[in-house]
């Protein structure tokens, strides 16, 4: 018995030593948004295949988590689909003595997805309907606000099970940003943010958790990033945009929404494109950003991150459309390449 124990201990110590002494790749840690997680995990996987000595470990804990952890300094970069507000930027500056920069990576869309028995196709949603459902005012699927936009579809009289995010989420930020623009009621009662006081609904953790809940709960209704609905074969609806047309989220409609912002992109890249003007624009979409500190004490890490961003702006963009994320407009890419020089 003693010998076996001793042997086990020796083996594990050897294994441990082996792992420690093995050729250590440069390990970079990032955390944040679940919105672009499928894109990022693909990118980091590919980048690692290309540059085997760099390992970028990204954990999707939600945009709120990304902002928090990069401010604390426990991760090297963050990611968020809700840009950091002025207070958060100041907090970072105060803590570190230098600032943090936003780098848009792709464009994505929040889509309304649902699990309604008997309905497998696309439903149309007006801004009033969405706001009413999430405020708890519209409680049944066959409410006139919903039925009115969906002539010919048999909607059951079941209660709507609203699903939202339980964690601090950029996806929520995009959704509530849109609702604040289209509904004064929402703006005054709830407001916009990564973590709001939801009037009704169940909470799911991450885009993954919300998609999981909706998939398993009949009569549910919630919002996820487009790719999550596609990858999980979940039906999603059209939303009425500011021009009055019911638009389905896809590469064309998201790119159309970003067209205006591309020309007027502010220097810090923080911009909201919800409810964008344009006949074909999808109203609930957004850029998503990497949050990269201005200064790095570790030169190797800095160069690796800058190298990744350069790759992302060129080769990486070619992977976006396969996962239903829209590429960055050319003007934005050009501006970002210039901004990258600010990372010291």
């Amino acid at each position, binding site marked *: 018995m003693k010998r076996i124990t001793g042997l086990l201990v020796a083996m594990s110590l050897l294994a441990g030593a082996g792992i420690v002494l093995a050729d250590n790749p440069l390990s970079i840690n990032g955390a944040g948004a679940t919105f672009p997680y499928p894109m990022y995990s693909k990118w*980091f996987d590919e980048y690692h295949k290309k540059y085997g000595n760099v390992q970028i470990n990204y954990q999707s804990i939600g945009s709120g988590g990304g902002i928090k952890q990069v401010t604390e300094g426990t991760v090297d970069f963050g990611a968020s689909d809700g840009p950091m507000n002025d207070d958060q930027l100041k907090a970072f500056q105060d803590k570190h003595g230098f600032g943090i920069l936003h780098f848009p990576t792709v464009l994505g869309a929040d889509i309304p997805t649902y699990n309604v028995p008997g309905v497998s196709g696309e439903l149309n949603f007006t801004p009033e309907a969405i706001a009413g459902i999430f405020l708890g005012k519209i409680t049944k699927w066959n409410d006139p606000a919903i039925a009115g936009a969906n002539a010919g579809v048999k909607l059951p009289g079941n209660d709507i099970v609203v699903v939202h995010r339980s964690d601090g989420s950029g996806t929520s930020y995009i959704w509530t940003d849109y609702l604040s623009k289209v509904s004064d009621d929402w703006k005054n009662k709830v407001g916009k943010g990564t973590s709001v006081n939801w009037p009704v609904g169940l909470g799911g953790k991450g885009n993954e958790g919300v998609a*999981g809940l909706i998939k398993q709960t009949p009569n549910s209704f919630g919002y996820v990033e487009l790719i999550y609905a596609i990858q999980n074969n979940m039906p999603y609806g059209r939303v009425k945009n500011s021009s009055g047309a019911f638009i389905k989220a896809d590469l064309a409609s998201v790119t159309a929404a970003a067209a205006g912002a591309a020309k007027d992109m502010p220097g810090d890249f923080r911009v909201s494109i919800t409810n964008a003007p344009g006949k074909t624009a999808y109203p609930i979409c957004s850029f998503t950003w990497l949050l990269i500190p201005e200064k790095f004490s570790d030169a190797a890490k800095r160069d690796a991150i800058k190298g990744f961003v350069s790759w992302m702006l060129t080769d990486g963009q070619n992977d976006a459309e396969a996962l239903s994320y829209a590429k960055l407009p050319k003007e934005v890419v050009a501006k970002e390449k210039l901004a990258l020089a600010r990372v010291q």
Partner: protein
Amino acid sequence: MSSNLRWRKFVSSFMLTMTGVCAVVAVAVLFFILGYLVYHGGTSINWSFFTKLPAPVGETGGGMANAIVGSGKLLLLAALIGVPIGFLGAIYLAEFSGSSVAFVVRYSADLLNGVPSIVIGIFAYSLAVLPFKHFSTLAGGLALGLMMIPITLRSTEEFLRAVPRALREGAMALGASKWKTIATVIVPAAYRGILTAVLLAFARVAGETAPLLFTAFGNRFWSPGWNQPTASLPVMIFTYAIAPYEDWHRQAWAAGLVLLGLILIINILARAILARGVAVPRS
């Protein structure tokens, strides 16, 4: 037989049968859990589960090789922290201490034992993550090690105390100093019980998830060294189970089977060791 007696006898048989039903239900739940896990996990386990890294989100395939190794590293660290402190502290309590000091130490150990694992996670985060600006295997190992301490301490103390006085006194009578007595007579006599205690503590922390959420964090790749975040089986199960991807569900079952299998084997092993009795080794 009076009708009252007949009624009482009926009640008696009925209630006692009900208690049997309760026992059967309780055990049935265990077998159901095991069976379900074996079925779903067993059909999902394949070679790539043990050898591959996680695939990009949404793609099928990939495995949990890094999580298995990560859990191994975390548990190794936990043992390195928990076992010495628990073991040597128990020696102090059993052999050297006065009753008031012993009371304080035991009380603290019981307190620590009762702390919910999520709170241990908060503690380890403020101790080992924030100051170093790093999620790491070390922080995760620290959190798990803290949880191992009280279990190891209390059980080891009991087994040390259970060693018969005659052994102690015999050694002393032969001129051995106290520490020599402890090292060469008492500890070997209690060896089986101590090993059992360590194994049970090990099994207990092997399945802990909450304290790892903000210490070891997570990693899609291999975690180099001890200073980087690492994947672990319990956290992967959690992440995959609440996600919508079918393939992730499949992998969560497989991981659940592996984890539970490991824990049950350790438990059974520990009990088997103890059942052979706390004996004085022949030398």
